[in-house]
């Protein structure tokens, strides 16, 4: 049964389509990112081999998830990193708060972390009297405006310069109005520098967690990640269970695939590898480093070998950059932490098919995402699989909310379709009818009206190919 009151993609998509500023912003931004990516993957053989390597490394890690997580924990602990586990986002929030309370920390600076968005961490911490300030410029901008990210790599991609200038002018003390990008950046630098200086704790995500060495890898361009994880005396890192990789040497190819797929960079400004808190003789670095490992339904996805491919994702965003749907409606229309193609397969699995089966149809199955996924996630195949799970209430189905998108009318429609098409005589009869009655198609009735409102009514030909072939004397089998 579909859950009433669940978010619905279509109305939000329609709203976005009518917002010409938003459409223009997104189109321009996506075109730019597509071009940047293409410019660094010019050798088709290198691309094919590198992504095959990426797919194999990620699939290999997912296949051994429990052992690798235990190895990761063992090595992290051996390095002095305290490891915590959380099955749900509520548990994760509680763990983070407990650590902060233990240290009397009330001022947090945050690096970008999509897992923290799943947790609604900022809201939770604010509610408990902890200031949690986003330090990545894009995240800082949307936090100022009380919004959520619309893209997993460039969270403020839906805003243009003018909108940001107005926002800074209104919300930042002593900031004079400017639309100059360098000046806006300097304002943010000034504000955040103070915050890095004063913060009691820094919270970050994790791009790759290496089981072999107990190392947390963070990818960034701005320096806010290093500031958040090295300046305050306490660092808390958040990761989903799927972020573990087996060996240190697995990191460089995955890192290369990530930066090139995401923003067309061969390398980011910083690649930060944390293997412990401040050493006994070190002069800086956090005195304590904590790692929180979050499940939030990923273990369920893991249980199905086909659907587990969802967990390979390295969060590059290439899929959404190339998606003809995402590039027209932007991220907010999906009403999910993860938008775009990866969001369409991940969100229904974590939130339940009964709540978010709407996302499964936000796709024409064009496959542009599959073509660019650096770890070869067969997104369109998984969409089809999830559509099957959504429309059939199989008690053995491993997917959350299976059958939750089932509609009696649709069941009937496909039964009728099957009846008409498995009997070739019935089919040819229907073809005769459609061609002879072609001027009488019920074009104004749904579902056809959805088509004919913007297109000329499709008219069947006067005779079918079956008829023409027979007439022409083309031999039957």
């Amino acid at each position, binding site marked *: 049964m579909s859950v009433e009151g669940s978010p619905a993609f279509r109305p939000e998509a329609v709203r976005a389509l009518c917002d010409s500023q938003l459409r223009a912003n997104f189109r321009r931004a996506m075109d730019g990112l597509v071009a940047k990516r293409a410019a660094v993957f010019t050798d088709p053989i290198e691309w094919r081999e590198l992504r095959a390597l990426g797919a194999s490394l990620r699939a290999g890690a997912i296949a051994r998830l429990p052992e690798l997580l235990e190895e990761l924990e063992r090595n992290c602990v051996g390095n002095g990193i305290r490891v915590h586990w959380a099955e749900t986002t509520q548990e994760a929030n509680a763990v983070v708060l407990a650590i902060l309370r233990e240290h009397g920390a009330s001022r947090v600076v945050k690096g970008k972390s999509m897992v923290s968005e799943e947790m609604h961490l900022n809201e939770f911490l604010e509610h408990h009297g902890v200031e949690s300030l986003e330090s990545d410029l894009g995240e800082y901008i949307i936090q100022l405006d009380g919004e959520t990210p619309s893209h997993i790599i460039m969270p403020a991609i839906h805003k243009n310069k003018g909108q940001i200038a107005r926002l800074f002018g209104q919300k930042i003390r002593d900031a004079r109005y400017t639309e100059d990008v360098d000046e806006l950046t300097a304002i943010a630098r000034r504000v955040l520098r103070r915050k890095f200086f004063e913060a009691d704790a820094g919270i970050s995500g994790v791009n790759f967690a290496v089981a072999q060495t107990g190392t947390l890898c963070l990818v960034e361009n701005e320096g806010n990640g290093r500031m958040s994880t090295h300046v305050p005396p306490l660092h808390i890192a958040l990761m989903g269970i799927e972020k573990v990789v087996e060996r240190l040497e697995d990191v460089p190819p995955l890192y290369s695939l990530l930066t090139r797929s995401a923003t067309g960079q061969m390398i980011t400004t910083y690649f930060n590898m944390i293997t412990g808190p401040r050493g006994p003789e070190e002069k800086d670095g956090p005195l304590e480093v904590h790692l929180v490992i979050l499940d939030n339904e990923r273990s369920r996805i893991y*249980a199905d070998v086909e659907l587990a491919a969802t967990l390979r994702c390295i969060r590059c965003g290439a899929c959404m950059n190339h998606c003809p749907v995402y590039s027209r409606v932007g991220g907010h229309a999906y009403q999910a932490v993860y938008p775009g193609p990866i969001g369409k397969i991940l969100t229904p699995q974590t939130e339940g098919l009964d709540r978010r089966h709407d996302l499964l149809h936000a796709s024409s199955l064009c496959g542009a995402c599959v073509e660019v996924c650096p770890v070869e996630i067969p997104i369109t195949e998984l969409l089809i699989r999830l559509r099957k799970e959504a429309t059939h209430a199989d008690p053995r189905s491993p997917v959350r909310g299976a059958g939750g998108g089932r509609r009696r009318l649709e069941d009937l429609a496909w039964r009728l379709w099957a009846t008409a098409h498995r009997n070739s005589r019935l089919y040819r009869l229907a073809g005769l009818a459609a061609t002879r009655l072609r001027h009488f198609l019920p074009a104004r009735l749904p579902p056809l009206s959805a088509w004919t409102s913007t297109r000329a009514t499709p008219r069947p030909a006067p005779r079918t190919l079956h008829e023409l072939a027979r007439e022409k004397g083309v031999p039957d089998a």
Partner: protein
Amino acid sequence: MPEEARERILRKLRTARGEPVPEKKSNFGVLERKTWPQGERYARLRRMMEAVRTEFVETTREGWPSDVLDFARAQGLSAILYGPRTTEGVRLASSWQAGAGPRLVPYDRSVEEIKRELFEEIDAGFTTTRGGIAETGGLILWPSPEEPRLLSLVPPVHLALLDTERIYDTFWQALRAEQWASGMPANALLISGPSKTADIEQTLAYGVHGPKRLVVFAIR
């Protein structure tokens, strides 16, 4: 409660699958093939890094301390933070002339003691590097008790010493050649340029939270 979560999660994962999925061995051939002749690596590294606004000063094994000093004076950098207990730090300090010109400030106390000065008065941080990466451009740094992490992060200018004979083809090659997996420091990092962002209308802006300038003193 955290203890329980661990058991719950691992139990779910362990019981989830029937037979283990056969593993395909990963083929790293594409990385093995990325090599450049020794002589070309520096040129490539420099080109890649200059494309993201890194500055280069070519120098020599003997002359780099005075080149650094000259640069600092010419740029009006009045306080340079450095690690006094490295070989290079010692050389830098001994080449420095007291009196007029930039002040050399030793990072010889914990960050708690030096924090305000670090954030508000230091113009530049000087560090050595472990090497570089040709494929993408990039410097390899392993911060240490002698050369702490914030040297290459907090001051608005980062002065980095690079031995151009220690440039690897790729990150993968560097990590394997030096066997990082057998012992990682608490912090290791790659730096490819001054800090930057494209979050405002995808327009590149430099000098966000990390250093605004990265100057590489390349020993040739």
